[in-house]
C-alpha cells in the first residue's frame, strides 16, 4: 500500500490524542471518586500530567517497535511480517498496550508530574545527542577519507608542494596522468582573501557596533540594527554576482586609469565583498558585548570626568575585549568557509601570489571544483577534497577553540 506511512502517522497521532484525553479523564474520575470518599486524600499531579503520561507511554513503545521493525525489515523478517500492513498493526497494538498499561497506574499518589519531567529531560538529551553524533560522524568520515588520500599522495607533497593541478587523465597512458596536489597556493589564496575581508569587516563592524551601542539614539538603533543584520541574510550567491559583475569590472577600469594591471577576477574583489558580508558578524556580537558592560562602569568613568570616547576606549572596549575577539574569530571562520563569492569573483586558478589584484583560489572553491561532475570515489582527485575539507575543519576548529580560550581567560580576570 503506497500510503502506509501517511496512514500510520495519522493513526499514531489520533492514538496519541486519544491517550492524552483518556488519561485526563481517568485522572479526573479517579480524583472525584476518591475525594468523595474522604477529604484527606490529596491528588499528587494535575490531570494534564496524567494525560501526558499516558500519551508518552502510548508513543514510546510504538516508536521503538516501529524503528526496530523498519531496520529489521529488509533482511531479517519473514515475508508476512515485513509487509506494510504488519507494520501498521504492530504500531497500533504497541500503542494501545502502552496506553492500557499507563492508564491503570493513575491513582492519587501516582507522581505523574515527575514521570513526565523525566520523559521530557530524556527527549532533550536525545536531541542534543543527535547533534553530537552528527559532528562525530562527519569528523570520523573526514579523517578516514583523508587517510585514504594520504596513502596515495604524500603528506609533505600536499602540505608543502607548490603545484596544484588535480586533473587526472581518464586513461592511464595519457601524459601527466598522476596529477599534482601541492596545496600551498590554495592555502595562500584562502589566507589572502580572508585577510582582505577581515581588514574590511573588523574596523567597520567594530565602529558600527560602538556607534550603535554608545552613540545612536534608541530610535535610530531600532531600525538600523535589523537593517545591518539583513546583510548577513542576503544569499551569498547574490553577493557573488555583485562581486563578479559590479565590483570586479569597476576595479578593472579604475586600475586601468591608474595604470595598474587588475585582472577581471581578483582576490581584491572577492575579499571586499566578503568583508561587507561579514560586517554584521562582527558588529552584531560586538554590539551585544559592549551593551552588556554594566552601566555602572560608564557612570563611574563619566563621574571621574572622562569624555565619552575616553570611556569607550579605556573602559568599555577593554571590558568587552574577549567578546569582541571571539566575534572577530567567528567572523574569520565564516570568511574561511565562504565559497560562493570566491568562485564567482576570485577565479579558479591556483596562483601563488601575494598580489591582491590577481586571480587566486581557496580551499572551499577547490573542494567544490573537485567534486562537481561525475567522480570516481577512490581517485586521489576526489579524495583530495576530503583532505582539503579536513584542513579547513582543523583551521576553523582551531579558531573557535582559540576564541573560547580567550573568552575564558579574560572572564576569569574580570568577573
Amino acid at each position, binding site marked *: 500500500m503506497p500510503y502506509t506511512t501517511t496512514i500510520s502517522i495519522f493513526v499514531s497521532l489520533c492514538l496519541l490524542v486519544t491517550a492524552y484525553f483518556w488519561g485526563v479523564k481517568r485522572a479526573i474520575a479517579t480524583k472525584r471518586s476518591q475525594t468523595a470518599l474522604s477529604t484527606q486524600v490529596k491528588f499528587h499531579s494535575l490531570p494534564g500530567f496524567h494525560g501526558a503520561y499516558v500519551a508518552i507511554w502510548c508513543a514510546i513503545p510504538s516508536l521503538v517497535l516501529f524503528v526496530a521493525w523498519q531496520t529489521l525489515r529488509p533482511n531479517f523478517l519473514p515475508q508476512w511480517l515485513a509487509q506494510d500492513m504488519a507494520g501498521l498493526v504492530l504500531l497500533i497494538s504497541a500503542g494501545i498496550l502502552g496506553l492500557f498499561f499507563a492508564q491503570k497506574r493513575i491513582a492519587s499518589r501516582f507522581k505523574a508530574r515527575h514521570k513526565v519531567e523525566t520523559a521530557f529531560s530524556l527527549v532533550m538529551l536525545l536531541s542534543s545527542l543527535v547533534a553530537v553524533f552528527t559532528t562525530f560522524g562527519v569528523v570520523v568520515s573526514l579523517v578516514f577519507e583523508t587517510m585514504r588520500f594520504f596513502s596515495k599522495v604524500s603528506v609533505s607533497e600536499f602540505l608543502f608542494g607548490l603545484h596544484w593541478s588535480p586533473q587526472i587523465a581518464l586513461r592511464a597512458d595519457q601524459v601527466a596522468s598522476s596529477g599534482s596536489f601541492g596545496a600551498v597556493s590554495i592555502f595562500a589564496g584562502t589566507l589572502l582573501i580572508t585577510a582582505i575581508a577581515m581588514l574590511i569587516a573588523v574596523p567597520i563592524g567594530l565602529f558600527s557596533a560602538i556607534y550603535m551601542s554608545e552613540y545612536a539614539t534608541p530610535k535610530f538603533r531600532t531600525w538600523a540594527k535589523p537593517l545591518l543584520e539583513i546583510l548577513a541574510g542576503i544569499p551569498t550567491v547574490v553577493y557573488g554576482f555583485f562581486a563578479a559583475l559590479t565590483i570586479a569590472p569597476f576595479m578593472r577600469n579604475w586600475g586601468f586609469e591608474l595604470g595598474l594591471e587588475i585582472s577581471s577576477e581578483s582576490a581584491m574583489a572577492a575579499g571586499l565583498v566578503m568583508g561587507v558580508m561579514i560586517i554584521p558578524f562582527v558588529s552584531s556580537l560586538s554590539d551585544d558585548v559592549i551593551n552588556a558592560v554594566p552601566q555602572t562602569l560608564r*557612570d563611574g568613568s563619566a563621574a571621574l570626568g572622562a569624555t565619552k570616547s575616553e570611556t569607550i576606549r579605556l573602559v568599555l572596549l577593554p571590558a568587552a575585549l574577549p567578546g569582541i575577539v571571539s566575534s572577530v574569530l567567528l567572523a574569520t571562520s565564516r570568511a574561511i568557509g565562504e565559497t560562493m563569492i570566491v568562485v564567482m569573483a576570485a577565479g579558479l586558478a591556483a596562483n601563488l601570489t601575494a598580489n591582491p589584484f590577481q586571480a587566486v583560489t581557496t580551499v572551499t572553491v577547490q573542494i567544490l571544483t573537485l567534486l562537481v561532475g561525475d567522480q570516481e570515489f577512490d581517485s586521489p582527485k576526489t579524495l583530495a577534497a576530503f583532505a582539503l575539507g579536513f584542513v579547513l575543519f582543523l583551521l576553523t576548529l582551531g579558531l573557535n577553540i582559540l576564541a573560547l580560550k580567550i573568552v575564558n581567560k579574560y572572564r576569569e*580576570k574580570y568577573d
Partner: protein
Amino acid sequence: MINTLLEENHMQENSILRAKYAAKNLDVYYADKQALFGINLDIMENQVTSLIGPSGCGKSTLLRCLNRMNDVIDICSVKGSIRLDGQDIYDDGIDVVELRARVGMVFQKPNPFPKSIYDNVAYGPKIHGMIDQKSDADEIVETSLKKAGLWQEVKDRLAAPGTGLSGGQQQRLCIARAIAVNPEVILMDEPCSALDPIATAIIEQLIDELKQKFTIVIVTHSMQQAARVSQKTAFFHLGSLVEFGDTDQIFTNPQNQQTQDYITGRYG
C-alpha cells in the same frame, strides 16, 4: 520658620565657613514627572552634608544634579540654578567634563573598573593629564590609596584586578579613585548600603578624615550614619526639602513634624 532657621544657620556659619554649593529654586523633571520641587540649599565647604528621606524622595536626583550626572538621562531636565563657588554649573559655557573632575562621585554599589587596582586609581589622573612620568602616577596611586585607608591591604598586589577585592575594599578603591583626581567635592550615594558594619565603620571614619580637605555630600538611609558623620542634614520628602540644619539640631530638636516622625522611625 524653616527659612528663618536656615537664615540663622547661615549667619552663624558664614563667619567661619563658605558655601561651596548654592542651589536656588531647583526643579528637576523626569519627562513630565517632577522629581524635585523648588529646592534651596547651601552646602558648606569642608563639611559633611547628609541627605536623608524616604525612598523615592529625590535624594539621588539632587546628588546627580550636583555633578550633572543627570545629563546622561535623556528625559531629565533641570530648572533653577546651582552655583559652585558662585558659578552656575548649568550655564551653557560650563565644561561638564571639567566639572566632574572637580566633583567626584562614589556610587551605591562599588563599581571598580575591570582593571588592576593601580590602573583603577591612575585612571582619572591619566585622562586629566596629571601624570607626566611613571613616578607621578606611583605617587598619586600611593597617596590616594593611603587616604582611602586601603594602602596597607593592597600595597603588595597593586597589579591584581580591582574587581577581586571584597565589597568594602572595592568601595574604598572607588573612593581612592575619586580622590586621585584631587576634586573639591565628593558626592556619595549610599556608599555603605552594600557593606557590613565593620567596612561601614572604616568608611565612616574615612569620611570624617576626608572632610579636612574635601566638601562631602552623602545620601544615606541610616539615621545613625547621618548623625555620626555629618555636620548638616537635609530631610527630603516627596521631592521637597522639608528641613535643613545642623545635624545635632535636626536629630535632637527637629522643627518639623514629618522630620520628627522620620528620624524616630514612625514614618509609615
